[in-house]
């Protein structure tokens, strides 16, 4: 367990990941990582999940396979990742080089009252990802590590997994559009798939 002072601010972390995004495609999970992405700035190439808990990483997989010429970043929370842990095994087998999965880990279920998640009790997501076959993993507790990962997202030769230790706080909610058809259609248009 890492003391709160050695954890990153979630909004600042999302800003760093998207700072030089280029043509990066972003998938965020239910719920706080979706608000984090919206706080940085809405973008047609962001696909936000408002539901379907556990889906974020595998949506990223399908997208990365379909768009091998573009980089895909999934940012989700520890609770959302824990609900679909099998996804790490599925992605570990496929390992498209253009996919990166980052988990903002505050050890809490933020949307339901900040109850402790399994990571708070010692479950190690990075160890799970490695055991599932991810060849390049990051356990990030500071800005330097985050910047290293953010750069790697754009030039990695294998699927990346990062656990980003973030503080257990609740910044003001910034809500992106929640019409699923709108989000899907504008994303597809933005990348020329529609």
């Amino acid at each position: 367990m890492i003391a709160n002072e050695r954890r990153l601010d979630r909004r600042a972390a999302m800003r760093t990941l998207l700072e030089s995004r280029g043509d990066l495609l972003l998938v965020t999970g239910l719920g706080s990582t979706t608000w984090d992405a919206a706080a940085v700035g809405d973008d047609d190439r962001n696909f936000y999940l408002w539901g379907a808990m556990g889906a974020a990483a595998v949506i990223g997989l399908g997208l990365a396979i379909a768009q091998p010429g573009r980089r895909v970043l999934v940012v989700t929370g520890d609770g959302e990742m824990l609900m679909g842990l099998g996804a790490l095994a599925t992605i570990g087998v496929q390992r498209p080089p253009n996919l990166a999965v980052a988990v903002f880990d505050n050890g809490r279920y933020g949307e339901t009252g900040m109850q402790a998640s399994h990571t708070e009790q010692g479950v190690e997501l990075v160890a799970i990802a490695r055991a599932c076959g991810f060849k390049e993993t990051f356990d990030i507790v500071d800005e330097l590590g985050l910047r290293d990962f953010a750069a790697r997202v754009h030039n990695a030769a294998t699927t990346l997994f990062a656990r980003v230790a973030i503080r257990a706080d609740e910044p003001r909610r910034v809500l992106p559009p929640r019409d699923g058809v709108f989000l899907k259609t504008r994303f597809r248009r933005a990348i020329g798939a529609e």
Partner: protein
Amino acid sequence: MSEPRKGELPDWRDEIFAALKAAEVRQVGYVPDAGHARLIELCRDDPELRAVPLTTEEEGVALAAGAWLGGQRAALLMQSSGVGNCVNMLSLIKTCRFPLVMLVAMRGEWAEFNPWQVPMGSRTQTALELCDVLVYRVERPEEAAETVTAALDIAYNGDLAAAVLLAQRLLGAKRWVK
């Protein structure tokens, strides 16, 4: 895909595979099932298709959504028990109107030996319909490929979810004692 020998009818599983190819399906997510064994093998052997083994069927729903976000068509292969695993994930499909095609090998119906398969098998169609998935049932081999094609057409033309249930009578009941 091997050509059928003279005088021999083509295998319906090969015809389903040809239907997937003709519809330009590019990703196939699957949880292994005896009824889908040959189809899975054909998909894995085809360089144009990405065959993705899943740990649970709901991953396949998310995979198909991601594929379509990126402009590719997908199909999911699963057993009827797996339909139950997909229920919440189907909210993604309905809310965003993602096209989705599921090919479901039925268990728990015709001559089933294992009673543990019956609760989900006997409610597979109902569960899918509750989630607004269109359901087509195949009982005879000659209907298989055209039904899969029809499901792909309606799903990808209309941003709808469709499932093809391959009846246990068609697949043949599992042999428990060899």
